[in-house]
């Protein structure tokens, strides 16, 4: 097991390097002088000159990449000119808020999605199946930003049950119940699409498994139907559900960008959009690298979970 984890971690190294390379290449797309782009058009020529030297922009491309990568590995992602603080500090501050939101949503969509899929498959063509299938179709088609707005309109404005925006109340608050009250709506809005996708996939995975011979064996030995569905079938179906959970985690992170804007959540997604609109390129660069790297690590966790579940995977 341990050696498997080490192997997976090592295999992530080239992917992580690839990510930095891709981000570096995309930033090389910036038209004109990068230093001007970074500092904005009002920068003095001396500052542009100095930044160019600082960033090693007078060097050839490949050398620039290694300079940038070296700095990155030492935790130096440059400074955000708009916020006037190190990029890494800002990214890490914001990343916590995104983790709370996306993490909650991920747990929600995994639980609800699998639950819906299993119930739907076990009651195939029944009322519950039809209701769930219909809900799933709507769920996977609704734009998360629109859903968020409609939820605010209903639950915050009309009914006044929940706060419309932010992570904590401005006055007072700051404790866990306050956070949860602010978290409910954005987390739900964010989980809807992924719940639909996972639910749909879980249903077909369960239907596939329920046709297998070993399910008939379980029934032939007199196992309770409840246990046939929730133990025998679900366990086998999880083998094909878990990789999709990994992929959906990426979609949850992506959706978080919209949800953070709609609900004024102080996360990394909103930071990125603001940074793009302010042309704060270094902040964008840093944010993208950190979040993508975390996503890669998360997918290693998914692989490890998969190998724990399925003894046939060589560890």
């Amino acid at each position: 097991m341990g050696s498997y984890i080490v192997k997976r971690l090592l295999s992530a190294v080239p992917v992580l390097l690839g990510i930095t390379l891709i981000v570096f290449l995309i930033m090389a797309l910036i038209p004109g002088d990068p230093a001007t782009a970074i500092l904005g058009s009002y920068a003095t020529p001396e500052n542009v000159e100095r930044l160019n030297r600082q960033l090693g922009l007078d060097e050839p491309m490949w050398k620039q990449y290694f300079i940038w990568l070296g700095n990155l590995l030492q935790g130096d992602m440059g400074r955000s000119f708009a916020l006037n603080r190190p990029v890494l500090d800002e990214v890490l501050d914001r990343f916590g808020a995104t983790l709370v939101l996306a993490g909650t949503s991920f747990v929600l969509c995994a639980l609800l999605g699998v639950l819906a899929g299993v119930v739907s498959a076990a009651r195939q063509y029944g009322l519950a199946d039809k209701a769930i299938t219909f809900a799933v179709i709507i769920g996977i088609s609704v734009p998360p930003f629109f859903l968020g707005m409609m939820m605010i309109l209903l639950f915050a404005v009309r009914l006044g049950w929940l706060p419309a925006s932010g992570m904590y109340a401005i006055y007072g608050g700051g404790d866990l119940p306050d956070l949860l009250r602010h978290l409910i709506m954005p987390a739900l809005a964010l989980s809807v699409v992924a719940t639909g996708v996972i639910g749909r996939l879980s249903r077909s995975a369960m239907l596939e498994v329920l046709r297998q011979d070993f399910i008939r064996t379980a029934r032939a030995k007199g196992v309770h139907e409840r246990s046939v569905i929730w133990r025998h079938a679900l366990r086998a179906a999880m083998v094909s559900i878990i990789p999709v959970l990994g992929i959906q985690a990426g979609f949850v992170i992506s959706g978080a960008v919209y949800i953070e804007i709609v609900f004024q959540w102080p996360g990394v997604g909103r930071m990125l959009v603001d940074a793009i609109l302010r042309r704060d390129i270094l902040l964008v660069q840093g944010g993208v690298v950190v979040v993508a790297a975390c996503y890669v690590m998360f997918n290693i966790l998914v692989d490890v979970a998969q190998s724990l579940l399925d003894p046939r995977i060589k560890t």
Partner: protein
Amino acid sequence: MSAFLKLLFRNRLAGAGAVVLAIIVVLVLLTPVLPLQPPNVTDTADRFLRPFSEGHLLGTDHLGRDLLSRLLWGTRLSLAVGFAAAIVAAVLGAAVGIIAGYFGGRIDNTIMRGIDMLMAFPYILLALAIVAALGPGLMNALIAVAAVNIPFFARNIRGITVGLAGKEFVDAARLAGLGHGRILLFELLPNVVPVIVIAMSTTIGWMILETAGLSFLGLGSQPPQADLGSMLGEARSAMITAPHTSVVPGAMILLIVMSINLLGDGVRDALDPRLKSGALSRPMAATLVERERVPEARGEGLLDIQELQTQFHVGRRIYRAVDGVSLTLEPGESLGIIGESGSGKSVTALSVMGLVASPPGVITGGAARYKGQDLIGAKYPRLRSLRGDRIAYIFQDPLSTLHPLYRVGDQLAEAILSHHSVSKAEAMQRAVGLLEDVRIPNAENRARAYPHELSGGMRQRVGIAMALANEPDIIIADEPTTALDVTVQAQILALLDDLRRDRGLAILFITHDFGVVGQLCDRVAVMYAGRIVEEGPTAEVLDDPAHPYTARLIACVPELGQGRREMAAIPGLPPAVDNLPEGCAFAPRCDKATPACRAGDIPLAGTERRRVRCIHPETDVEAVA
């Protein structure tokens, strides 16, 4: 094509999606000629007019612009951009995929590594990075969304191309001296176009959503130009006071994406042959029973199967897999059911405990009485409590019939725990004991193994141990040795025979092998096309078969150590059980058949001991008795 459309529209939701999408597309195409107000003319006096105001059917936005007009123009823009992004992604992705798949080797490796890297990003990060570099704007948003989707197309197309690149027609083209470029364009491309189209139809809704999303964030279309996303983004600040300005574009995005998704699902389902055949249904906990009448109990035997009828209902077709089978099994007796595949022998065995997959299986008649009580009509809880406890099964291929993810010891213990309230530890202990009973060496360790870690013979021993777990009265063995090689087969048969003698088990043994029947069974019933054609003591049937079919079947078995006997394969195929001929089902393959064989029902006649369903039997069964 028309069959495809019929299938598509039979799915009402897909039909609705197609209609809605068609309406939207027509409206959008007609937008320039419709009598609409100009979308960008502001009128601050008439801000935020509610829907159904005079002159503004959907009201006006924060600048007093007509919402209906803006909606249609915005939809036009959103659809165009989404579609363009899909085309760009499809063309570039397909190009990358075809090249990687065709050239293979190092080129393939390098390209696919790059694709994997791109896929390591949550998609929006990549899109945001691209927009950050190029700057906000609709064109740049389009580029970003297209770029993010290239890996998806590249992967799919590469997979297909790898398969095609090894085909003869590509080799032939190469030998004919065609260059790589021509082979790629004229040989490979036409073959992957359908895949590209399908991949596009599943992603286009999503791409429309993504471009709208970037516009919503203010990174896509810039004012005064507006697509649905930027309309929604601009309306957000007035969401509370004038919600209709948000609802109108938001609902339109939902409508578009949903109708595309519904249509896409419908297309996929209509193209999937498995859906038509009902093969995507999951079997229920017990076979469906729809009996019109129940035969009177005869009060015979430990297990008494009477006039059993099991059918498969697939669409409008009815397959009579088991058509009026009667069998009696006495305590301690071993009864073989023999026949070719498709003869209904396994379905007979599975029907007893309601294990025929349903749908499509339906038991339409007859009874199966265990100690006098009918199992066919039994309620599920009763059936479950007997399954594996009094009547247990052994199945054919133990690799697919054991759960791949549970240790064999746990699977055995579960069989015990399903019927006895003992502690988990005790059940485990008994499980190890069972493994010892079926002569698995080092049982304690083997109990902790997963099925894939055992050999075929070992797995089947586990299967037998599982059947023995609750000391049943009857074991129904459905071709338990077919998947095994000959020496292992002999060991398993010897084991079953010993167990039967030691424990007084009754065994119903399903097989297609007379050798196996001869070794293990007291009596044998021969099945053909869902019916029993001959029944009697094994030795008598083997030495002196009465039905021509039995005779031919026995002649098919080569005997070990007796030199090569003539292998008389039976000409023709067994009939399809959805369209049985009148009279004897074997008549078309039988060289003794006369016109009388093809008319009317031929009864299973003879004595209690030996019976045959034939009007020209090879031997007189009544004389034998």
